[in-house]
């Protein structure tokens, strides 16, 4: 019976091709618009580290006071050098890392034809690699004694390792960064979480998406070498023109990101209390003239607070869904017209003994063939649309949107389900057809 109904459906669709084409196109366009915007939205709103997003947290404290807060009542998005060092040295969390973005010139060993080039990465403390689950090809990160010993060690990324050492195991080799020599202790595999949740503060790039970082050096060494931040800094009410490097370190400008790992709610509470105590001490010492104002956001809360998903993406998703909704209403109307035009046929079928159930089944199947055709058109349009995504969203974001199997399946499933849903009312109307009435008027 099922196959027969599919056949009937296809035949009925062929009977008025214009109406059918209209429905298929409405569904195709609607589902494609939704899928294109959804694929972008999905790419940038995903949880970049699901297994740890509850445990990794950002300590924030208000060092500018309520008068200078850039966001109403919210503490700064990063820490001053003073606070970062104090919180890091206190080791109150299971793991903690402080870091800032650096852009360094890589100076190739044998002058010759190769010219120096810039690479960006982080000056970080050793826990960085374990906290963010950085994958290693060779070697590993450095440990706390390297941090404390201001060691000349570095971790480089896979791409830089390709470029300098043709992909060979370079652990133990030297690398010259901005005129200073470091011993390579590790080579990371490709690692580029999107969005780059751990560094939403300093990144200049769009919505936490940029090229994968390729260089990591110890925080303490970077400070010794006076490596300036390659990222953002924010000074609130403080002057950004401080008295030299020392003044910069002592000043109230924030430029260092910090993350802690806290595995249980009790640990989180304890750390929050520690932060409050620290701010209270600062208040007592006279540095802060206001009550402690601290935050301890986890990864998802942090992504939300930093507004990683650009408004364009949300608005276009909402508009596209509205568009799909209109297409479906359109489809309801057209299906209604189409089904009701066949009232005499239904009357005959019912009179010959078909139950309402049979009528339901027949028309829902017919509708789902429309949905399927719409879905296939949708896949085609989505594929074409993917090339156009670059015209609509920033290139960095557009790069993330891609058509994969799951999206194709989703497109077809959504198209069929939505069409079947839209067909419920017309089908119900069709099943209500009174056989006697239809036969009489004939």
């Amino acid at each position, binding site marked *: 019976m099922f196959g027969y109904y599919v056949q009937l459906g296809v035949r009925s669709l062929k009977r008025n091709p214009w109406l059918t084409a209209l429905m298929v196109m409405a569904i195709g366009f609607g589902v494609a618009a939704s899928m294109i915007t959804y694929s972008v939205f999905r790419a940038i709103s995903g949880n970049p580290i699901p297994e740890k997003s509850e445990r990794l947290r950002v300590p924030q404290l208000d060092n500018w006071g309520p008068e200078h807060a850039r966001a109403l009542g919210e503490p700064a998005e990063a820490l001053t050098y003073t606070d970062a060092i104090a919180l890091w040295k206190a080791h109150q969390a299971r793991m903690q890392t402080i870091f800032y973005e650096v852009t360094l010139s890589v100076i190739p060993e044998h002058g010759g034809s190769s010219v120096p080039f810039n690479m960006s990465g982080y000056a970080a403390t050793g826990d960085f690699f374990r906290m963010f689950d950085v994958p290693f090809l060779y070697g590993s990160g450095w440990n706390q004694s390297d941090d404390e010993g201001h060691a000349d060690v570095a971790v480089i990324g896979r791409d830089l390792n390709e470029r300098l050492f043709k992909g060979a195991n370079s652990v133990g080799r030297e690398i010259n960064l901005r005129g200073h020599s470091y011993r390579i202790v590790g080579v990371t595999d490709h690692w580029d979480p999107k969005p780059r949740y751990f560094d939403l503060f300093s990144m200049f790039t769009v919505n936490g998406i940029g090229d994968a970082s390729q260089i990591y050096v110890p925080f303490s060494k970077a400070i010794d070498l006076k490596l300036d931040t390659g990222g953002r800094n924010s000074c609130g009410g*403080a002057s950004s023109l401080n008295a030299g490097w020392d003044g910069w370190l002592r000043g109230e400008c924030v430029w260092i990101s910090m993350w802690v790992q806290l595995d249980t709610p009790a640990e989180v509470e304890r750390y929050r209390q520690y932060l409050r105590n620290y701010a209270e001490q600062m208040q007592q010492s006279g540095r802060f003239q206001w009550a402690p104002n601290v935050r301890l956001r986890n990864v998802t809360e942090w992504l939300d607070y930093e507004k990683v998903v650009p408004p364009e993406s949300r608005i276009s998703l909402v508009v596209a869904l509205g568009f799909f909704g209109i297409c479906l209403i359109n489809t309801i109307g057209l299906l209604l017209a189409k089904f009701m035009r066949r009232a005499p046929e239904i009357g005959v079928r019912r009179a010959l003994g078909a139950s309402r159930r049979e009528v339901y089944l027949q028309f829902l199947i017919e509708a789902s063939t429309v949905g399927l055709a719409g879905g296939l058109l949708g896949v085609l349009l989505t594929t074409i649309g993917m090339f156009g995504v670059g015209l609509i969203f920033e290139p960095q974001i557009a790069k993330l949107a891609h058509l994969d199997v799951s999206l194709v399946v989703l497109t077809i499933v959504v198209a069929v389900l939505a069409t079947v849903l839209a067909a419920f009312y017309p089908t119900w109307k069709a099943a209500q057809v009174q056989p006697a009435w239809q036969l009489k008027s004939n």
Partner: protein
Amino acid sequence: MMPQIKPILSALRRHKAGAVLIALQTALTLAIVCNALFIIQQRVAHLSAPSGIDEPNLLVIENTWADKLSKEDADAQLRADLAVLRQIPGVHDAVVSNAYPMRGSGWDQFITLTPDQTTAVGDPAVYLGDEHFIDTLGVKLIAGRNFRPDEVRPIANRESTMPPVTIVTKALADKLFPDGSALGKQIYAMSSTPTTIIGIVDLLQTQSLANWQMRSAYQSLIWPMRIVGNSYYILRAQPGQLAAVRQAAVKALYAQNRMRIINDDGVLDYTQVRQAAYDSDYGMAMLMGIICVVLLAITAAGIVGLTSFWVGQRRKQIGVRRALGATRHDILSYFMTENLLITVGGVIFGVALAIAMNLWLVTHFEMDRLSLIYLLVGVLLLLLLGQGAALAPAVRASRVSPIEATRSV
């Protein structure tokens, strides 16, 4: 036409579902089209905002030194670079700065009028440049004077120097001193040493174009400083010479000193800068445009489809009416009026929906309130669309021959 409304309404009651569907579709289309048109207008206004600089002839080169240089060495290199750049045939002028207009992000600085004031009066973008800055960017000096060469000092990153003089934009001058007395006044950049305003320039766009910075749009100030370290060379070519200058400049810089880094994507003309800065505006306007067009087409097609169905359903009745003396025009106006009634119903609901959708956008995305013009345009557009879509089926209905009345089907 008036007397026809009653029979139309009672006929509509016979096919409520179809009428409601068309009205609903009209309403939703109106809501989306109004807001989409409004978004397009806002984005286009945003991206066509002038920058105040001589965009067609400007080139930006990002330069970093490969070696770690002392401030003195770096400054010497910098001056040598500038001398080389200003010598290139076709170059009108060149300057080194910390940033360039519409860069996407940059330096903003809280400004107060007294040293002990705690809340900022202005939050302008900060440009560092020497006495060539104004001429290079093509900014117009409208009051006061330019920097003198002896006022310009080198500055390294994180260095403390509060320059004694500054040039501000008119927008900033008006913000700080609304009475127009800015020239010669002292301002404070969150420090105890004052800076005197010696010149006012007309338009100079800020570095960031994000919402927070746009609250201080065009509020910029220039400090007489040569930034050593990571910096941008800005070149102004003579008209028509930009391509040649682009070719020559990077080569000349490497010839001057090869221990530097200039990335391929570190050389930009203003077509590229603008594109990068307004990418999302451009894309948004385009997406909304596409959606509007497709949406209107689909809604029109839907109306054509349903009206045709009704016409088909009522051929016999039409025949009877014609046989009883109704003219073709009567039939035509019947279907047109029917469509008008449905569309008006939809439009009324749609206006409410459009306002609701706009309010949602206002609360969630810092959008502006929808202006009435867009509602009016949207309403008119949909009424016309409805009438246009109903026309073909209505004409077909009017051609139904009275003979149909005698046929059994």
